[in-house]
């Protein structure tokens, strides 16, 4: 966990220093998109090579899928309600 704080903090300092040009920031954004896709691919590899997941899938997959669906739907609903009530309009992107 400390590694996450460390790299976020380092990146923050680089951004905060104002040394990056407009062009550098554009490259940063484009790099992030490519890295993100690579990361998701690699995380997929992690799931695919995990025998525990693949073997449990046929028997427990349906139940696990439903629980995940309900957890996500519940989170979305409650966060929607609470942020509508308490936070300034975050709006959309």
């Amino acid at each position, binding site marked *: 966990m400390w590694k996450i704080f460390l790299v976020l903090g380092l990146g923050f300092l*680089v951004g*905060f220093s104002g040394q990056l040009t407009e062009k550098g920031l554009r490259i940063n954004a484009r790099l992030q998109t490519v890295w993100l896709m690579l990361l998701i691919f690699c995380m997929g*590899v992690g799931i695919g090579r995990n025998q525990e997941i693949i073997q449990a899938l046929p028997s427990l997959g349906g139940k696990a899928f439903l629980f995940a669906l309900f957890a996500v739907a519940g989170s979305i609903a409650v966060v929607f309600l609470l942020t509508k009530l308490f936070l*300034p309009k975050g709006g959309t992107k």
Partner: protein
Amino acid sequence: MSKAILIALVLGIGAGMYIPEIWSAFLDASSSYMLLILLFCVGIDMGVHREVFVQIRRMGLRILVIPLGVVLGSLAGGALCAMLLQGDVMEGIAITSGLGWYSLSGILMTEAGNPAGGAISFLSNVFREVFTFLLVPILARRNVYVAIAPAGATAMDTTLPLLSKYTDSQTAILAFISGVLCTLAVPVLVPFFCI
């Protein structure tokens, strides 16, 4: 964009199943380093848009409604799902209180004496992370706060780059805070509902 994510994910899962073990082990291990590089880039974005910290400070303790909503919604979802399946409600809540942290939540349930529930919890929280990858780009278009909701505990690491890309710096910081608090909540919540 969700489509590209789905394709990358499916290709990855397929590759993980069929390419030689040496390669898949390498790719699997490299993902944690890639994540750190990405988080460095996310940090840069946060540093550049430092004005958002002022806005977040203005929100004060109200920012806690996001992690609170994530936890309450997840627990309620678990209870509802267990009722629907006519199973043990407490077990259902224990499963969804993993908040997407699959490597820990399954182990916690197994250690608490419920290995069958642990297996479901592990798989279910893997699914939650997958759902998050697919839902964030869609949700972010409508409401950036809501886009944080599916991520749960993963908002502080694996899904933070995604949230940063599809929302804005302010939301990314709110997501990170929410992810940290959810991460702290998992080791407390799961054993609590395993009684």
